[in-house]
């Protein structure tokens, strides 16, 4: 038999150990193998064909619980080529046949949509065919990314196998200064841990009652950039209950749980951060890069993605852009993370502010984040993006350079045409 079946003297557990024990058959600790129930399986458009092939040809199976499977058409939406259109057509047909949920073109980015639809909840296990599935940790769900076979096995069985991860404890202390955001905190965390600093591990973030749900999503989203299997934010205060989530008492980590590493981030000392090409952990103060890149023209600014395409991100950008224009020769792309974000931004005038400033608005979805469509970069171009990956070739040509930053810094950069902080924008802070 696998793991330990009896547990005479229960040891304190991390949050990952708690969730995997609860959703499995017995109490488990880091290093144990566990077979656990999966509460939601998410399939994105780009992997849908492989998923369907695994289900139908390799397993000869149908989803055990169709209501626990969601297909989201978001990575290349609307379709850009005939073969993409064909694959999406097959995904729609599969959903209609099997009764799994389908979120079609324009509904938004997988992680944002699942969160809005209540398909990730505290204590749940959510698997996605996309590496940024760590995002669900924002609401204390064990979210993890996997390949097509794992995803198909989970859909067919309602379960998955997991090695229970070691945990890294990250504690936030103090309060953010004005102009510093969750994105800056996340980049600092990646800088401190390094790109493989949490491989196989779960990052458990102790934030107290700081950070909104959206900010927690930004933090959990970037955990995979340190190699993590999951990024769990411990629920604190009223943050999640205000959104209507029930938080089970058992989900909290125990006092005295074992961590392989503990770090503390003093929020009060943080400055806006930027990740320079072409590793996410290549993180600098924006103020420093602004000097280094004084003479570098920024060709494209992209505000969107599962990291920073939410309403508060669009508000932060609009606050910088209100009454101003994007610099000549710079393109500003804004893609809301979901149809709901788009609606909210339409209703409160944010989109009008952005449009008047010269932004180009796109269909809710991933946009150019992975360089497939809607704004790929030419050789030598420079892009400042609110996304999560700046790898070589990620958004187009391999000789394009991508810098990752918060929406406020991205917006300031769009106005100035070079890397800038909001305070560099003339008249910033005055009422426009």
């Amino acid at each position, binding site marked *: 038999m696998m793991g330990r079946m009896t547990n005479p003297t229960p040891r304190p557990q991390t949050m990952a150990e708690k969730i995997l024990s609860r959703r499995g058959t017995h109490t488990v600790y880091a290093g144990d193998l566990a077979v656990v129930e999966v509460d939601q399986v998410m399939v994105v458009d780009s992997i849908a064909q492989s998923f369907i092939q695994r289900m139908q040809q*390799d397993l000869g199976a149908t989803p055990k619980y169709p209501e626990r499977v969601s297909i989201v058409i978001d990575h290349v939406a609307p379709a850009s080529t005939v073969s993409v259109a064909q694959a999406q057509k097959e995904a729609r047909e599969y959903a209609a046949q099997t009764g799994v949920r389908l979120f079609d073109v324009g509904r938004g980015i997988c992680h944002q949509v699942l969160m809005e639809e209540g398909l990730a909840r505290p204590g749940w296990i959510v698997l996605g065919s996309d590496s940024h599935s760590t995002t669900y940790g924002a609401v204390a769900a064990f979210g993890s990314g*996997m*390949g097509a076979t*794992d995803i198909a*096995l989970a859909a067919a*069985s309602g*379960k998955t196998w997991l090695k229970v991860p070691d945990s890294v404890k990250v504690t936030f202390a103090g309060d953010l200064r004005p102009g510093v955001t969750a994105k800056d905190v996340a980049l600092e965390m990646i800088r401190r841990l390094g790109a*493989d600093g949490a*491989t196989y591990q779960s990052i458990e973030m102790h934030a107290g009652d700081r950070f909104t749900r959206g900010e927690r999503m930004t933090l959990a989203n970037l955990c995979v950039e340190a190699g993590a299997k999951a990024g769990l934010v411990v629920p604190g205060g009223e943050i999640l209950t205000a959104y209507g989530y029930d938080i089970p008492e058992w989900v909290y980590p125990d006092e005295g749980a074992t961590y392989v590493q503990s770090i503390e981030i003093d929020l009060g000392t943080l400055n806006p951060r930027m990740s320079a090409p072409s590793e996410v952990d290549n993180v600098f103060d924006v103020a420093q890069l602004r000097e280094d890149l004084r003479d570098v023209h920024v060709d494209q600014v992209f505000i969107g993605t599962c990291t920073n395409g939410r309403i508060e991100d669009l508000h932060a950008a609009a606050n910088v852009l209100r009454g101003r224009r994007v610099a000549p020769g710079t393109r500003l792309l804004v893609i809301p993370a979901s149809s709901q974000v788009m609606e909210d931004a339409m209703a409160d005038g944010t989109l009008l502010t952005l449009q008047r400033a010269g932004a180009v608005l796109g269909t809710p979805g991933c946009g150019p984040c992975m360089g497939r469509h809607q704004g790929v970069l030419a050789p030598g171009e420079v892009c400042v993006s609110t996304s999560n990956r700046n790898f070589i070739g990620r958004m187009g040509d391999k000789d394009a350079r991508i810098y990752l930053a918060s929406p406020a810094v991205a917006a300031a950069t769009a106005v100035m045409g070079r890397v800038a902080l909001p305070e560099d924008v003339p008249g910033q802070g005055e009422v426009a």
Partner: protein
Amino acid sequence: MARIWKFGDSVNTDDILPGKFAPFMAGEDVFQTFAFHYIRPEFAASVRPGDVLIGGRNWGLGSSREYAPQALKKLQVGGIVAPSFARIHYRNLLNLGIPAFEFDLTGLLEDGAEVSLDVQTGVLTHAGGTVQLPPPPEFLREALAEGSILAFFKKHGRFPGEPA
């Protein structure tokens, strides 16, 4: 006997199978002939069934593409031994039934060395003696006996270690 193919640190999924030779581009039947195409061009033509790959840290980092390990499976690679594996790739290996052992052999064995590997026990025999690799957990041994986790599930309708 099997031979050792030795690689360095951070062999990524593009090294294992470059994206442009993905099955849907190179062809379902031949894509495996492009395994390690750029970093070991002679590999696919000379690898023999059962040969063992040894690598350095973070083997298999990069994308979650499953066709990289699939190419190795088609070439009947006998096992991969590396001090650490990238997480999604490690799962893909086991799902497909390619034995993966977390152990550093790079200091002990040279490229081309003749060995034999018992994947059930993790015992690797080479000219100078034997090495006990950390055997795969019981859970995985059960799966490997059926070929892979996928094959195990298909046959039993459950995961290894789960009550029948």
